[in-house]
Protein backbone atom coordinates (compact mmCIF):
# COMPACT_ATOMS: atom_id res chain seq x y z
CA UNK A 1 0.00 0.00 0.00
CA UNK A 2 1.16 3.46 -0.81
CA UNK A 3 1.67 5.94 1.97
CA UNK A 4 -1.03 8.06 0.29
CA UNK A 5 -3.79 5.58 -0.60
CA UNK A 6 -5.64 8.07 -2.78
CA UNK A 7 -2.51 9.63 -4.19
CA UNK A 8 -1.21 13.00 -3.02
CA UNK A 9 -3.26 15.29 -5.27
CA UNK A 10 -0.81 18.18 -5.13
CA UNK A 11 2.41 16.24 -4.84
CA UNK A 12 5.44 18.16 -6.05
CA UNK A 13 6.23 15.51 -8.63
CA UNK A 14 2.92 15.83 -10.36
CA UNK A 15 2.86 19.62 -10.22
CA UNK A 16 6.38 19.81 -11.57
CA UNK A 17 5.47 17.48 -14.40
CA UNK A 18 2.51 19.65 -15.33
CA UNK A 19 4.63 22.79 -15.30
CA UNK A 20 7.30 21.10 -17.39
CA UNK A 21 4.70 19.83 -19.86
CA UNK A 22 3.24 23.31 -20.18
CA UNK A 23 6.66 24.70 -20.98
CA UNK A 24 7.04 22.04 -23.61
CA UNK A 25 10.51 20.78 -22.84
CA UNK A 26 9.58 17.85 -20.65
CA UNK A 27 12.86 16.02 -20.79
CA UNK A 28 15.36 18.70 -20.00
CA UNK A 29 13.79 21.88 -18.68
CA UNK A 30 13.57 22.36 -14.93
CA UNK A 31 10.41 24.00 -13.59
CA UNK A 32 10.81 27.46 -12.07
CA UNK A 33 10.20 26.34 -8.48
CA UNK A 34 13.06 23.85 -8.53
CA UNK A 35 15.86 25.97 -9.98
CA UNK A 36 18.60 26.75 -7.47
CA UNK A 37 18.85 30.46 -6.85
CA UNK A 38 21.28 31.86 -4.34
CA UNK A 39 21.34 35.56 -3.45
CA UNK A 40 24.26 36.07 -5.85
CA UNK A 41 22.33 34.52 -8.69
CA UNK A 42 19.22 36.57 -7.88
CA UNK A 43 21.31 39.76 -7.78
CA UNK A 44 22.92 38.92 -11.13
CA UNK A 45 19.49 38.33 -12.69
CA UNK A 46 18.14 41.65 -11.32
CA UNK A 47 21.24 43.42 -12.64
CA UNK A 48 20.47 42.13 -16.13
CA UNK A 49 16.67 42.19 -16.43
CA UNK A 50 15.69 44.69 -13.71
CA UNK A 51 12.27 44.12 -12.17
CA UNK A 52 10.74 42.35 -15.16
CA UNK A 53 8.85 39.16 -14.30
CA UNK A 54 10.13 36.45 -16.64
CA UNK A 55 7.73 33.96 -18.18
CA UNK A 56 8.78 30.41 -18.96
CA UNK A 57 8.79 29.36 -22.61
CA UNK A 58 9.66 30.89 -25.96
CA UNK A 59 13.30 29.77 -25.74
CA UNK A 60 14.81 26.51 -26.90
CA UNK A 61 18.20 25.38 -25.60
CA UNK A 62 20.56 22.87 -27.13
CA UNK A 63 23.03 21.61 -24.52
CA UNK A 64 24.63 18.28 -23.69
CA UNK A 65 22.85 16.26 -21.01
CA UNK A 66 26.27 15.53 -19.54
CA UNK A 67 29.28 17.75 -20.22
CA UNK A 68 32.44 15.62 -20.23
CA UNK A 69 34.64 18.71 -19.86
CA UNK A 70 33.13 21.53 -17.80
CA UNK A 71 35.68 23.98 -19.25
CA UNK A 72 34.08 23.81 -22.70
CA UNK A 73 30.33 23.21 -22.72
CA UNK A 74 28.59 24.01 -26.02
CA UNK A 75 25.32 25.93 -25.70
CA UNK A 76 22.91 27.06 -28.45
CA UNK A 77 20.01 29.41 -27.64
CA UNK A 78 17.11 29.97 -30.03
CA UNK A 79 14.45 32.53 -29.09
CA UNK A 80 11.08 32.63 -30.79
CA UNK A 81 10.99 36.11 -32.41
CA UNK A 82 10.38 37.60 -35.89
CA UNK A 83 13.37 39.96 -35.35
CA UNK A 84 11.65 42.92 -37.04
CA UNK A 85 12.08 46.56 -36.03
CA UNK A 86 8.76 46.32 -34.12
CA UNK A 87 9.30 42.94 -32.46
CA UNK A 88 12.78 41.69 -31.78
CA UNK A 89 14.96 40.24 -29.05
CA UNK A 90 17.11 42.94 -27.46
CA UNK A 91 19.24 40.68 -25.30
CA UNK A 92 19.93 37.06 -24.37
CA UNK A 93 21.53 36.51 -20.95
CA UNK A 94 23.17 33.30 -19.71
CA UNK A 95 23.53 32.70 -15.96
CA UNK A 96 25.25 29.88 -14.06
CA UNK A 97 23.61 28.88 -10.76
CA UNK A 98 26.48 26.92 -9.18
CA UNK A 99 29.70 28.48 -10.48
CA UNK A 100 32.02 30.62 -8.31
CA UNK A 101 30.33 33.63 -10.00
CA UNK A 102 27.02 33.59 -11.90
CA UNK A 103 27.99 35.64 -14.99
CA UNK A 104 28.47 33.82 -18.31
CA UNK A 105 27.63 36.27 -21.11
CA UNK A 106 24.98 38.61 -22.54
CA UNK A 107 24.27 38.90 -26.27
CA UNK A 108 22.79 42.30 -27.29
CA UNK A 109 20.92 41.80 -30.55
CA UNK A 110 19.18 44.12 -33.02
CA UNK A 111 16.80 43.69 -35.98
CA UNK A 112 19.96 43.49 -38.13
CA UNK A 113 20.71 40.17 -36.40
CA UNK A 114 17.93 38.65 -38.52
CA UNK A 115 17.55 35.65 -36.25
CA UNK A 116 17.54 35.33 -32.46
CA UNK A 117 19.87 32.35 -32.44
CA UNK A 118 23.28 32.41 -30.77
CA UNK A 119 25.83 29.85 -29.64
CA UNK A 120 28.93 29.84 -27.47
CA UNK A 121 31.03 27.63 -25.20
CA UNK A 122 30.73 28.06 -21.46
CA UNK A 123 32.42 26.93 -18.24
CA UNK A 124 30.54 24.96 -15.59
CA UNK A 125 32.16 24.11 -12.25
CA UNK A 126 29.77 21.27 -11.37
CA UNK A 127 26.32 19.84 -12.14
CA UNK A 128 23.93 22.76 -12.18
CA UNK A 129 21.04 24.57 -13.79
CA UNK A 130 21.81 26.95 -16.65
CA UNK A 131 19.40 29.92 -16.76
CA UNK A 132 18.71 31.82 -19.97
CA UNK A 133 16.70 35.05 -20.19
CA UNK A 134 15.50 36.70 -23.41
CA UNK A 135 14.52 40.39 -23.28
CA UNK A 136 12.12 41.42 -26.04
CA UNK A 137 11.74 44.89 -27.57
CA UNK A 138 8.30 45.24 -25.92
CA UNK A 139 9.91 44.85 -22.50
CA UNK A 140 8.72 41.30 -21.81
CA UNK A 141 11.23 38.69 -20.67
CA UNK A 142 11.20 34.96 -21.32
CA UNK A 143 13.11 32.43 -19.28
CA UNK A 144 14.39 28.89 -19.76
CA UNK A 145 16.34 26.61 -17.46
CA UNK A 146 18.14 23.36 -18.12
CA UNK A 147 20.13 21.07 -15.88
CA UNK A 148 23.55 20.01 -17.15
CA UNK A 149 25.62 17.28 -15.51
CA UNK A 150 29.38 17.85 -15.49
CA UNK A 151 31.97 15.04 -15.48
CA UNK A 152 35.05 17.22 -14.88
CA UNK A 153 34.49 20.73 -13.50
CA UNK A 154 35.76 23.57 -15.62
CA UNK A 155 36.27 26.59 -13.37
CA UNK A 156 38.87 25.83 -10.73
CA UNK A 157 40.99 23.27 -12.57
Amino acid at each position, binding site marked *: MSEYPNGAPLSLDRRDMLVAAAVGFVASIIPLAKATTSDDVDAAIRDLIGNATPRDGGISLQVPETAENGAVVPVTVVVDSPMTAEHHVRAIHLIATR*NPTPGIASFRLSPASGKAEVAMRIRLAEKQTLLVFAEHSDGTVNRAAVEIKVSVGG*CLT
Partner: protein
Amino acid sequence: MTVPLTSRPRIKLPASAKVGDVIEIRTLFEHPMEPGFRRAPDGQPIPRDILARFHAQANGERVVQVDLRNATSANPYLVFHARIVGPTDFDFVWTHEDGRTASTAAHVAVK
Protein backbone atom coordinates in the same frame (compact mmCIF):
# COMPACT_ATOMS: atom_id res chain seq x y z
CA MET B 1 51.18 39.65 -16.79
CA THR B 2 48.33 39.44 -19.23
CA VAL B 3 48.52 37.69 -22.58
CA PRO B 4 49.07 40.06 -25.52
CA LEU B 5 46.12 40.24 -27.94
CA THR B 6 48.14 38.73 -30.77
CA SER B 7 45.70 35.99 -31.73
CA ARG B 8 44.63 36.10 -35.36
CA PRO B 9 40.85 36.38 -35.04
CA ARG B 10 39.07 33.60 -36.92
CA ILE B 11 35.84 34.45 -38.71
CA LYS B 12 33.67 32.13 -40.75
CA LEU B 13 30.93 33.62 -42.92
CA PRO B 14 29.83 33.25 -46.56
CA ALA B 15 31.61 35.34 -49.22
CA SER B 16 28.28 36.20 -50.79
CA ALA B 17 24.56 36.00 -50.04
CA LYS B 18 21.23 37.03 -51.52
CA VAL B 19 19.44 40.16 -50.32
CA GLY B 20 17.12 39.07 -47.50
CA ASP B 21 19.24 36.08 -46.49
CA VAL B 22 20.12 35.64 -42.84
CA ILE B 23 23.72 34.42 -42.66
CA GLU B 24 25.49 32.63 -39.83
CA ILE B 25 28.74 34.15 -38.54
CA ARG B 26 31.18 32.15 -36.40
CA THR B 27 34.05 33.81 -34.56
CA LEU B 28 36.92 32.52 -32.45
CA PHE B 29 39.64 34.45 -30.65
CA GLU B 30 42.47 32.68 -28.83
CA HIS B 31 42.61 33.97 -25.27
CA PRO B 32 42.82 32.25 -21.83
CA MET B 33 39.81 34.15 -20.34
CA GLU B 34 41.46 33.79 -16.93
CA PRO B 35 38.85 34.65 -14.27
CA GLY B 36 41.43 35.45 -11.56
CA PHE B 37 40.45 32.99 -8.83
CA ARG B 38 42.46 29.97 -9.93
CA ARG B 39 45.87 28.90 -8.62
CA ALA B 40 48.82 27.54 -10.54
CA PRO B 41 50.22 24.11 -9.53
CA ASP B 42 52.79 25.94 -7.36
CA GLY B 43 49.98 27.60 -5.37
CA GLN B 44 50.46 31.06 -6.84
CA PRO B 45 47.24 32.84 -7.80
CA ILE B 46 46.80 33.27 -11.56
CA PRO B 47 45.97 36.94 -12.26
CA ARG B 48 42.72 37.92 -13.94
CA ASP B 49 42.97 38.36 -17.73
CA ILE B 50 39.60 38.61 -19.47
CA LEU B 51 38.15 39.87 -22.73
CA ALA B 52 35.11 41.87 -21.67
CA ARG B 53 33.33 42.51 -24.95
CA PHE B 54 32.88 41.46 -28.55
CA HIS B 55 31.24 43.76 -31.04
CA ALA B 56 30.09 43.07 -34.63
CA GLN B 57 28.94 45.83 -36.97
CA ALA B 58 27.52 45.68 -40.51
CA ASN B 59 28.13 48.86 -42.53
CA GLY B 60 28.54 50.68 -39.21
CA GLU B 61 25.31 49.36 -37.67
CA ARG B 62 25.31 47.03 -34.66
CA VAL B 63 24.58 43.39 -35.43
CA VAL B 64 25.51 41.98 -32.04
CA GLN B 65 27.43 42.97 -28.94
CA VAL B 66 28.42 40.30 -26.45
CA ASP B 67 29.36 41.06 -22.84
CA LEU B 68 31.71 38.27 -21.82
CA ARG B 69 31.95 37.21 -18.16
CA ASN B 70 33.87 34.70 -16.02
CA ALA B 71 32.13 31.59 -17.36
CA THR B 72 32.88 32.28 -21.02
CA SER B 73 35.25 29.44 -22.03
CA ALA B 74 38.86 30.14 -22.99
CA ASN B 75 39.24 31.03 -26.67
CA PRO B 76 35.78 32.61 -26.89
CA TYR B 77 33.75 31.02 -29.69
CA LEU B 78 30.65 33.00 -30.60
CA VAL B 79 28.00 32.22 -33.21
CA PHE B 80 25.33 34.72 -34.28
CA HIS B 81 23.42 35.85 -37.38
CA ALA B 82 23.05 38.87 -39.65
CA ARG B 83 20.40 39.82 -42.18
CA ILE B 84 21.93 40.82 -45.54
CA VAL B 85 20.27 43.88 -47.13
CA GLY B 86 23.06 44.69 -49.62
CA PRO B 87 26.83 44.47 -50.01
CA THR B 88 28.09 44.48 -46.43
CA ASP B 89 31.34 45.43 -44.73
CA PHE B 90 31.56 43.68 -41.37
CA ASP B 91 33.79 44.86 -38.53
CA PHE B 92 34.54 42.63 -35.54
CA VAL B 93 36.21 43.97 -32.38
CA TRP B 94 37.30 42.19 -29.19
CA THR B 95 37.90 44.47 -26.20
CA HIS B 96 39.93 43.49 -23.12
CA GLU B 97 38.87 44.66 -19.64
CA ASP B 98 41.93 46.92 -19.64
CA GLY B 99 40.79 48.64 -22.86
CA ARG B 100 43.08 46.97 -25.41
CA THR B 101 41.36 45.86 -28.59
CA ALA B 102 41.88 43.48 -31.51
CA SER B 103 39.84 43.61 -34.66
CA THR B 104 39.25 42.15 -38.08
CA ALA B 105 36.95 42.82 -41.03
CA ALA B 106 35.14 40.86 -43.73
CA HIS B 107 33.05 41.63 -46.81
CA VAL B 108 29.90 39.85 -47.97
CA ALA B 109 28.99 40.46 -51.61
CA VAL B 110 25.46 40.25 -52.97
CA LYS B 111 24.66 37.49 -55.49
